[in-house]
């Protein structure tokens, strides 16, 4: 009966608070990345237990905003910097100077002092191109974003929905900044004609390209590298105009009751060791000198990053998404 349910609930709550050193960490990192990070952190701080809450960038951001009145997270670890900036605007974050902050690149942290968030790595857009299907359907390999708007790719492209996917948003924000607003929307209008599917996550387009569902998947470099490593017949292509990008960053929630443990996690996140782990997944990380080239991604990610104004991208996020949704989301498939 009700009492039983309440009792069970009470038990769950008690069990949850029994261990004082438990951190609730919200993250948009990929599920397959977290394990290595967790193991390394655990080795450094064995007494701190991390409870991960993982989802797409848009969802983690939405959750944090929804729980504004009663925040559940202690730390946000590995979320798009643009999202952290919107959270900061709501007053949800607290400033902290991690031990060793001075060692990381100045561009990879909140410019404010003390910073509200510190960067981990940069994740940038990439194209997953299925070579087997391309050969079957005589589709040429794209070299640029402009190529994708050509008729040859009609119905062959999957792209993440920017409203839910951070990867999708950084692409859109990238195009709008590279081309200017007007030309940017015009480009997306043309691209839209070729898009077969807008997906919920940034990984799915690459996975779909890998399965031959579509020939082209707009995704990001980590997923492209990883998917090719898994044996899928794809090429990872970095379009020549430049890559949209965002920074994965971490911050402490203002409402945390586990401040000490939270600080430890941020301290760890700027260490060389942590950055070496990031470097196994991403080409550009916060710690200078720690640079690993991704095995299956041709080209220099860092040199190709487009000019990106985070503040602009964060401030206009809501407006851009509304416009995007109005233009492309409601337009149904032809029957």
């Amino acid at each position, binding site marked *: *009966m009700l009492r039983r349910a309440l009792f069970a609930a009470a038990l769950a709550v008690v069990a949850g608070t029994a261990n004082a050193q438990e951190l609730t960490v919200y993250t948009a990192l990929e599920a397959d990345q977290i394990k290595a990070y967790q193991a390394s952190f655990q080795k450094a701080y064995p007494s701190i237990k991390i409870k991960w809450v993982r989802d797409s960038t848009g*969802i983690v951001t939405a959750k944090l905003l929804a729980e504004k009145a009663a925040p559940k997270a202690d730390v946000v670890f590995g979320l798009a910097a643009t999202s952290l900036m919107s959270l900061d605007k709501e007053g949800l974050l607290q400033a902290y100077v991690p031990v060793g902050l001075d060692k990381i690149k100045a561009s990879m942290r909140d410019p404010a002092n003390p910073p509200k968030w510190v960067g981990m790595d940069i994740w940038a857009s990439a194209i997953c191109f299925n070579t*087997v299907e391309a050969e079957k359907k005589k589709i040429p390999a794209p070299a640029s974003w402009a190529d994708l708007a050509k008729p040859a790719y009609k119905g062959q492209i999957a792209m993440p929905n920017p*409203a839910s996917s951070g990867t999708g948003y950084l692409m859109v924000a990238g195009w709008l900044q590279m081309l200017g607003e007007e030309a940017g929307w015009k480009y997306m209008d043309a691209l839209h004609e070729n898009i077969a599917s*807008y997906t*919920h996550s940034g990984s799915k387009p690459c996975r779909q390209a890998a399965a031959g*569902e579509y020939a082209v998947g707009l995704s990001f470099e980590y997923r492209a590298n990883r998917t090719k490593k898994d044996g899928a017949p794809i090429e990872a292509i970095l379009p020549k105009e430049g890559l949209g990008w965002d920074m994965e960053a971490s911050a402490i929630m203002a409402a945390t009751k586990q401040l000490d443990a939270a600080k430890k996690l941020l301290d760890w996140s700027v260490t060389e060791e942590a950055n070496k782990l990031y470097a196994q997944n991403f080409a550009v990380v916060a710690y200078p000198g720690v640079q690993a080239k991704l095995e299956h991604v041709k080209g220099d990610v860092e040199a190709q990053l487009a000019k990106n104004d985070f503040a602009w991208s964060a401030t206009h996020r809501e407006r851009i998404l509304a416009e995007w949704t109005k233009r492309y989301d409601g*337009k149904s498939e032809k029957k």
Partner: protein
Amino acid sequence: MTSVTSNQLDAAAAEAARGRPVRQRMSRDDLLMRIMLVLLTLWLVGTVLLPLGALLRKSVEGPAGEFVGLANFVQYFSNPALTASIANSIWIASISTVICVLLSFAFAYGLTRTCMPGRSVFKLVSQIPLLAPSLLPAISLVYLFGNQGIAKDVLLGASIYGPIGIVIGEVFWTFPHALIIMTTALATADARLYEAAAALKASNWRTFWTVTVPGARYGLISATFVVFTLVITDFGVPKVIGGQYNVLATDIYKQVIGQQNFRMGAVVGLLLLLPAVLSFAVDQYVQRRQSAALSARAVPYEPKPDRAIDTFAFIACGLIAAAVLIVIGMAFFASLATLWPYNLTPSLKNYDFDNMDGGGWQSFYNSLKMAGMTAVVGTALVFMGAYLVEKTKGFHTGRFIFQLLALLPLAVPGIVLGLGYIFFFNAPSNPASFIYGTMAILVLCTVAHFYSVAHLTAVTALKQLDQEIETVSASLRVPFFRTFLLVTLPVCLPAVLDIAMYLFVNALTTVSAVVFLYAPETTLASIAVLNMDDAGDVAPAAAMAMTIFFAATLVRVLYILLTRSVLGRTQAWRRR
């Protein structure tokens, strides 16, 4: 006992006849029952009514929680991208309903009105879709008819992503629901009408249209509305295979989860409530009419072997059953392939859930736990509620309110209920907000979500019991709970097991209500299917869906074995 004179009795009888009931002194039992009924009513208020109220309130709130009237609705209706979903939803639901009702009618006709071979096997196969989340048929369709699908040529170049895929998936998923209704409607027929038709030398065709179809008309209406509501409120199928074809149910998910817009989610939620409430009202009306359709003098109709009809029915039902098996089989096959479609070597790689989104194998164990708790807690609550509402003497208003609340969840789509739960239970001012993010809230929500059907099952079972059992025990001064435990419960054991089974399987497969409520320690298998599909891990999603299917099937088999042995002992009295 004081002696009662016959005069007094006569007076009481006369008074009762005039419509005024005899006022009896309330016994301690009566009082206790009323208090319990009130408590259960409050529980339903807290788990169904108040969350809905919170949803309603949210829909008229601004960003800072201020009252803005209908501003959110105006904003919604001025966005053509969003309102297009209304037409899409209605269109999809209508097509799916027509197809599903026709197929289920044909299938039910085969099962009840013909002597075709293999009826028990067909019956088993037809129930398969109930044992998997609605995401499973959609995933399977991707493998069957997607761009790399093994049967994509069947679609003649049309895309499975969109209306076609949604309709096929929904028909698969709603088929057993419609079939149960149609089988019931066709199972009861008056043989005398058929004799009369035969005597009048009416052709089979004519008899079919003038006797069979009108006889099943309430079943047809009921099935139509049930399927329509299920389709328009389901979000699993369109989520996976809808492509860019937006419908209301996926809009809620996108608004809430993708765009952080809870107010717009509440608006769409209220829109979804409309068809569900309408369908509920029609169903209630129809059920009242149907009970009178068969008179006591009716002679049950027994089908006679007819070679042509039996063969035809066998082929038709065989095709439908084959389609069901192909959909399940395809998902199973895809879940075992190493790298679809380039490397089809069988492997268990896709069952290695711990390296993927969705919470790994833990979510499967969580699901079992949640389903188990839902079955135990839910069955206890439901049966007690049904008992009290049936057996409490007097207290008409209280019983009426309870009955209404018990049926309310039938009119509330899961996704709407789940959204209401966020607003209600995540408000810091709610003293019960501590259950937010725990297993308890998932159990609470799932019990509420599936309360009505379980309640109706319990009530039906209780109605079959002679009222005199209570009267006799009361006169022997046996407390009602003893009668309940020693007589009512054992006698109703089949219904109790039925309810537990129903709650367990539904808790295992549901996605809609719990999708907004799970937390990292309480990820569920059905949600994992959704999240893995979202992340592009479609084959692992198929693998998890199959794991759920196998678990549900196993439980179902255990249930059949259990009922055979237990019921063999406790239900011997039913046989003559």
